[in-house]
């Protein structure tokens, strides 16, 4: 232990650094960051995965939602050091390698579930986590509740709810896990 406080260490350019190893979208990634690096900033700044958006930075808007070991979480409310060794899925991990959209992404396009697009990565990841949990969902009231943790200031939500409903049907038909990278034409 040092006698300097963390803030003093930082001012002296000596803030303690931690190596963080994670699997992101199936690939091992690592970076060395200070303990205070939020997972959202770790993804965007250190790993250059800028698809994860940062809105409010205090857990209200949901724009930064990613999957941690398959469960949706707010990446702005987790420190990167705290998820060392775990698996993450971000918006970059959903479309097929050839660019074919994931059924949730396709449904958002089909139903005008986005306008400016800022909230969309968070909505899509929340939807993937929700549909993995509730694959049989078919009523808009349940979907509204399931998606209630994300804010959109453009669409008025109707298109988003329709999109999640369509995606639920598409995923039921294909049998794919909503949290996996899309495989075109695949009915696994």
């Amino acid at each position, binding site marked *: *232990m040092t006698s300097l*406080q*963390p*803030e003093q*260490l*930082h001012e002296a350019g000596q*803030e*303690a650094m*931690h190596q963080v190893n994670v699997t992101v979208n199936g690939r091992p990634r690592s970076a060395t960051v*200070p*303990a*205070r690096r*939020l997972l959202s*900033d770790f993804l965007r700044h250190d790993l250059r995965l800028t698809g994860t958006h940062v809105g409010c*930075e*205090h*857990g209200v808007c*949901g724009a930064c*939602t990613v999957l*941690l070991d398959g*469960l*949706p*979480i*707010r990446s*702005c*409310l*987790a*420190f990167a*050091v*705290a998820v*060392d060794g775990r698996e993450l899925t971000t918006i970059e991990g959903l479309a097929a390698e050839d660019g074919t959209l994931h059924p949730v992404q396709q449904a958002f396009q089909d139903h005008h579930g986005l306008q400016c697009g800022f909230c969309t990565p968070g909505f899509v990841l*929340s939807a993937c*986590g*929700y549909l993995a*949990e509730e694959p049989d969902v078919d009523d808009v009231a349940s979907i509204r*509740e*399931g998606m*209630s*943790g*994300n804010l959109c200031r453009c669409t008025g939500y109707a298109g988003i709810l329709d999109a999640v409903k369509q995606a639920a049907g598409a995923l039921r038909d294909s049998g794919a896990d909503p949290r996996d990278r899309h495989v075109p034409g695949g009915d696994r």
Partner: protein
Amino acid sequence: MKPSAFAYHAPTELDEALALLAELGEDGKVLAGGQSLVPMMNMRLAAPAALVDITRIDALGNLEVTGSHVTVGATVTHERLRKDPAAAAACPLLRRALEWVAHPVIRNRGTAVGSIAHADPAAELPAVLALLGGHVDLAGRQGTRRLEGADFILGLLESDVRPGEVATRVSLPVTPPRTGTAFHELARRHGDYALAGVGVMLSLDDDDNVEVARAAFIGVGDGPVVVDLGAMLAGQPHDALSSEAAVATARDQLDPSDDIHASGSYRRHLAGILLGRALAEAAVDAARRGVPA
């Protein structure tokens, strides 16, 4: 909107965590799910010099249901507790209250014990503890302490966790037969902090008349406000409660303050409306819950 610098520790054994916290004293803060602490740090409302992350301590992840208690370890998330069928059967109010806690994405990471230790006056689980009367176990390097639920929450955002201590688990009593519960609240958006809310516990006698009734309100004081309504409701038939007097009594004991979301008088009005609904629901629930042996 970025946290200030801190030293990070992630022990894998409770003893190691307690030794670290003892050494850190007032500078050390326990991190579990972080769903209240991290936003406060992001907004620089909190700036602990060191965090001790307890989520890698396996022993704190136990969720146990015995004949007498549901015992929830410090790293058990809201969502894990909500989905646990044994916990819901033993203590139905838990699931009823957890349905109101934030949004699913927050529940995936936030912990039940952390919510109780954080003691937000609008949070549901501190009210469940205050209403059902469980206990909280704390560990420090000097040993362990057990506090009654009613004694654990000291006030606004303040619980009786001393520097160097970890709240290791919370135990809630198994709900007996002939006892019903309900939880009602209103928020501007379901999952947001409630404008007002209430948990109710109500027991019936052999003739299906009310014997015991208690309510714990959230969002209307510095912590959960527990009001005993037994005197107002005792002897009433479970399926035709006349709760006006009980509601008036409860409202008299609430003095919520104004804020940008609602005036104090509206919150008091709302708390009474919610109480009436919750009492009726708990009475029906109690009648469904078996006949004493």
